[in-house]
């Protein structure tokens, strides 16, 4: 194997590593060092060996492979770009017109606030929201109130799941090691048995929040819910979608809600666009399927207005249902008087939903909390 001097190569590898990092790949000095060590051991003049040596050392996950494959030919152009197998001519994210929105419940949000006294209700038109994502009109008091409720709800969702998991297996196991020690201490027969308890396993929450045009008037409210949920339960992954999906977990990890909202409005494309729930959920499944397991609770916040393919939505919901522990759909429209989930999207999704509840104002969140609490008690008694 040829082992030429790698001196000038090093700088390029470092630069390439930086490019990967800029595209979100965890690639630090350790990886670079590994890559250089690897290059010493392969034939760097063989394009394939060169590429594979970098690919094996610089990348640690399947998502990152795609980034690598896209960047590699750009950086190492002397090598012929690797044919990126079958790139189907799928239709691109067609920009769709925002569907009509269900403004009906706007007033109800205002109504619910009345209980809080003569506090000012943020009145804004859908137009204004479309123009600029300004989340700052929330009063601190509102934030606080919603925050508290949301924490309660989040805990409810989380404990319910872990309890069920706990009952499913022995929660106590004999701790032989400690028993043996006790035995020694007392010299004779087993004086008492030492037990150990399995740690309660935490539930993972996956939140998928619709921020399309039809959801506009609720979006900022829901985002707040998502933020607080992420705060309350450690293990939360959050996504927002309209015509496509964006992971917002890191953005929501900001110290304050305001900061989070700020970062969000800057990072999320397609805000207030049309809705393609099915395609967005598919996108979730393609990139993040591994987040789903029987301990995952999936919460979808959407009004079910889907301008995309219902067939795709059906497939996506079926798979999400099959892979996760529980699917909760929060629909802000459910709070409107006389609302029937008749939209095609909602009809398609409903069979795969465990809990279908409203989420359009504080009152509905309280209601949701009660529903979940009641369920815990009921199942508790039955067993």
């Amino acid at each position, binding site marked *: 194997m040829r082992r030429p001097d790698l001196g000038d190569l090093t700088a390029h590898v470092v630069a390439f590593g930086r490019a990967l990092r800029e595209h979100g790949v965890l690639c630090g000095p350790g990886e670079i060092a590994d890559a250089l060590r690897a290059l010493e051991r392969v034939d760097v003049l063989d394009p394939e060996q060169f590429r*594979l040596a970098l690919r094996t050392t610089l990348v*640690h996950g399947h998502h990152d492979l795609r980034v690598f494959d896209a960047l590699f030919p750009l950086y190492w152009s002397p090598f012929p770009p690797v044919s990126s197998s079958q790139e189907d001519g799928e239709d691109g994210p067609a920009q769709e017109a925002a569907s009509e929105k269900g403004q009906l419940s706007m007033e109800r949000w205002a109504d619910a606030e009345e209980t809080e006294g003569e506090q000012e209700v943020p009145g804004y038109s859908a137009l204004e929201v479309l123009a600029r994502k300004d989340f700052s009109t929330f009063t601190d008091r509102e934030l606080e109130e919603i925050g508290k409720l949301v924490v309660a709800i989040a805990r409810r969702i989380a404990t319910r799941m872990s309890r069920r998991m706990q009952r499913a297996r022995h929660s106590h196991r004999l701790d032989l090691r400690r028993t043996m020690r006790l035995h020694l201490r007392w010299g004779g027969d087993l004086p008492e048995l030492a037990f150990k308890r399995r740690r309660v396993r935490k539930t993972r929450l996956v939140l998928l929040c619709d921020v399309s045009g039809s959801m506009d008037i609720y979006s900022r409210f829901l985002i707040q819910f998502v933020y607080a949920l992420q705060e309350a339960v450690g293990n939360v992954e959050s996504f927002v979608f309209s015509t496509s999906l964006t992971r917002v977990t890191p953005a929501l990890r900001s110290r304050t809600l305001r900061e989070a909202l700020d970062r969000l409005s800057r990072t999320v494309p397609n805000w207030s666009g049309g809705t393609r729930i099915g395609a967005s959920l598919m996108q979730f499944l393609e990139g993040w399927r591994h*987040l789903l397991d029987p301990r995952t609770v999936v919460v979808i916040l959407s009004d079910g207005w889907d301008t995309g393919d219902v067939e795709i939505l059906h497939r996506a919901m079926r798979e999400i249902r099959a892979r996760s522990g529980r699917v909760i759909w929060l629909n802000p429209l459910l709070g409107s008087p006389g609302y029937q989930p008749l939209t095609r999207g909602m009809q398609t999704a409903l069979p795969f939903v465990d809990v279908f509840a409203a989420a359009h104002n504080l009152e509905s969140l309280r209601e949701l909390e009660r529903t979940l609490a009641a369920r815990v008690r009921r199942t508790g008694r039955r067993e």
Partner: protein
Amino acid sequence: MSRPTLGNIEQILQALEQEGYIADREIATAIYLSIELHKPLLVEGAAGVGKTEIAKVMSQALGTDLIRLQCYEGLDVSTALYEWNYPKQMLRIRLEEGTDRTVEEKEQTIFSEAFLLRRPLLQAITHHRAPVLLVDEIDRADVEFESFLLEVLSDWQVTIPEIGTIRARHIPYVVLTSNRTRELSDALRRRCLYLWIDYPSFEKELRIVLRKVPGISQQLAEQIAAFMHLVRRLDLQKVPGVAETLDWSLALLRLHRDHLDRTSVEETIGCLFKHHEDQRLVRGPWLDAALAAIHEAQRDGEGLARALNRIERTLKA
């Protein structure tokens, strides 16, 4: 610490091939670098693409032992690392009942190496020569276990409170596999070299079938590989892996089929699809169209490999 290697990438390809594992350069390179750089190899990919196989053939090719740790939910340190031999301890305590040794002395006896049961991780680091340690389906283990494993993989030593620290005699070759049922920690990922195994290409699957199913005709093997390639593009609940391909090929051979037609597929469909819905989907009109296209391409001598993309598009339409 001696750690034999497998030579260069070319030699690894050959060695794997000799052990009956059809590898491509990507897999060979990953194995090669894992051995050369002394780093664990994390292998991810769908079920049935041959992730676990890698550790097995590595151990055979290296002529060393394979120590396997199968992960599952609730796997804990005592199952993975060591456990005390309680019955033996109990017996010793009984035997020493009459003696006037102090509790401390007794304790020292029964918590010594003679009473230690070595579980896979401890076995791996105290083995008389560097073994291949397979940590299978690490994604099924809990997060706590993952961090513990990370510690072992970093330090190559474990501490048993009653005995002390045990350092590795030889650093094992480590292969971790994951089906991605949950996300692994970045820390663990970064300890490892990464290999993603996809479903095999048509050519690779054909080679696997020809190699692993002796007596199969070239024609049937090609049809099988093409069929597998096409069927994996369907919206299935459970996509069949290479293991299923081989089961199916053997079944067809047993039934003395020399080509694929609707009857032979229907008779053996259980080998490939373990979901009723999947079976129904495949049995539909898709099957006739796919079989017709495969036969046609083969008749024309077009070469199935080249025809596949075209067939795929026609089937989609």
